[in-house]
């Protein structure tokens, strides 16, 4: 969990409640297509209204259950075991770095330069950042792994680009 489960559930419950209300309102105010003389039972907003209503009910139940649950980690009758991966601590730093690198590649590099170059830079940066040796490692010893990572990045960037461009005839971004 990113935050404790009760707080997370409460927040989610509120977001989902708003989503449900928005869906219900969206379905209700949606064009009824009277001008086309369609059957009232086939209006496009019918199912969205139903889904909105169902989501409102579910989110209220979620909010009620968070208010009545005393356990702060798991729901009352949860069968999720203690060895669940969800109870293991994760690394926020690694997560943030991954998101930044992935978004920078998809949103920043792609389309601004040839696909192979962008992909090569991304793979190299990603691998280098997460394999960066500790400070105690001498500078010379850091160079060899970096060169290997660079080689790895070039091989895969060229390989993937070639496969999609010439194998699958995709006009790369």
């Amino acid at each position, binding site marked *: 969990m990113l935050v404790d489960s009760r707080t997370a559930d409460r927040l989610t419950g509120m977001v989902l409640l708003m989503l449900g209300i928005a869906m219900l309102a969206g379905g209700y105010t949606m064009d009824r297509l009277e001008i086309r003389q369609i*059957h009232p039972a086939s209006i496009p907003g019918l199912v969205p209204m139903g889904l909105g209503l169902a989501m409102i009910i579910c989110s209220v139940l979620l909010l009620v259950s968070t208010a009545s649950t005393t356990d702060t980690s798991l729901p009352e009758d949860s069968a*999720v075991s203690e060895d669940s991966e969800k109870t293991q601590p994760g690394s926020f730093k690694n*997560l943030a770095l991954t998101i930044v690198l992935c978004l920078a590649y998809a949103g920043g590099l792609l389309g601004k330069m040839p696909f192979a170059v962008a992909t090569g830079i991304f793979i190299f940066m990603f691998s280098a950042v997460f394999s960066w040796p500790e400070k105690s490692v001498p500078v010379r010893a850091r160079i060899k792994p970096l060169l290997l990572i660079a080689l790895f990045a070039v091989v895969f960037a060229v390989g993937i680009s070639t496969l999609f461009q010439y194998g699958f005839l995709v006009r790369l971004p």
Partner: protein
Amino acid sequence: MHALQSLAEALISLCTPMSLLHVAWATLLGIFVGSLPGLTATMGVALLTTLTYTLDKDTAILVLICMYVGAIYGGSRSAILLNIPGTPASAATALDGFPLAQRGEAANAMALATAGSALGTLVGIVMLVLLAPPLAEVALNFGSFEFFWLALFGIVISGQLTGGGSPLKGYIAGLLGLMVAMIGSEGIHAHVRFNLGLRDLNGGVALIPAMVGAFGFAEVLTVMWRPKGELLDTKKSATSALPRMLDLWRYKFTIVRSGIIGTIVGIIPGVGEDIGAWSSYAVAKKLSKHPELYGKGSTEGLTAAETGNSAVVPGALIPALTLAVPGSAPAAVLIAALFIHGIRPGPMIMIEQPDFIYSIAAMLVLATLAIAVFGLSLTRLFIKILKVPRELLMPVVFTLCVIGPYALTQRVFDIWVMLFFGLIGFVLRRMDYPMAPLVLGIILGTLLDKSLRRGLTLSNGDLSPFFTRPISASFAAIIFLSIVLSIPAVRRALFRIIPGLPGPVKPSVTEEQS
């Protein structure tokens, strides 16, 4: 008899050198994908789908099936050696597989897992060949009323069984998927709904980018967030080995039973391999002469879990082919792949392409043979695969997550869809929301929407046919009972009245995708 003859003919037609080559590489790739924690069967099938655009449809389906079977089997490798299930389907395998490896019996554990997987898939294939044609025939009688309930049934049951201790979260995930399916031009009047002013959303949210995001990018984030696993010292124990025939013979009933349980679990829409493994494991433990050994290195438990999860694969294909309702998350991607390659799964498949089901069964047989061969002969290679650092693997996976969905439509918008679903998928997973109902909701949303409105139009706004037609009434009753029984207070009251009532199936540790 006709079924077996058709299966034999399909097998013979597939036994060309080129097909066997495809079987070999795709299954090996599948085992590779499955054995690496962080790469799942769904993700493997989704990514490989984007690589099959240029293949002919039979070859494309063949490699996707091999990937599916291989990945579900491959998960047992890291479960046994790392105590980290390669795919969630192997979570139950880790319970007994890892203690066996710690005792120096890794080779025996892997051999038994291989045999269990192969035999489980074979049991499932027999049931696929026997059950799919009559089911398709029954499905021919389905109208809008039945299809509405079928779509709802899939989402409710999937939400309930994959929601673990909280079915409510499963239902919410299913509703979210249905809401996503409401975006874009609807199927009856072509009226555009909820496009948020973006023209790119007029056609709706494409399934492949959404799934690659929810299962691929979310998995990349999950893997990088998690601590690293430690590989066991396997120098002594991880040699090539054949399963001890005595063990297999001793567990013959466990294998058949787990195979049947796995297949039945597979037929239930959107439930998946992990529940198949846990159900088989739970039943095997209950009926075992040595239940005290379970969780401490029981070869019987290991066999049951592996047989159960592999049998789900053919089971999941039964509703996928005959009803176009996926039995598991990888089967959902497979349905999308079938559409991409011009094959329309559903009740008409036995009329339009009567031999297609037997071709699929034959592909499953070849994939099973391939996992048996590779599983028993390439133990050392798999251990090397497990040593590939995630820092090198994940950027390549992410690159494929980006380029795969883009390649389908060549729209940059689909990359953003993938990223959005990846981030949402990661957050939802961390809060114990299962992903399978979400994906099922996206797939079945259109069917549910169109069937309800078409049904109401046919009945002139009268709701009664939804409850009075026999099949509709049965579906409605099952859905109602499922929802009522998922209420904790009702369940507790029932447990008090009927003490022997089986409790809920233990959910997987990482149900989100298999």
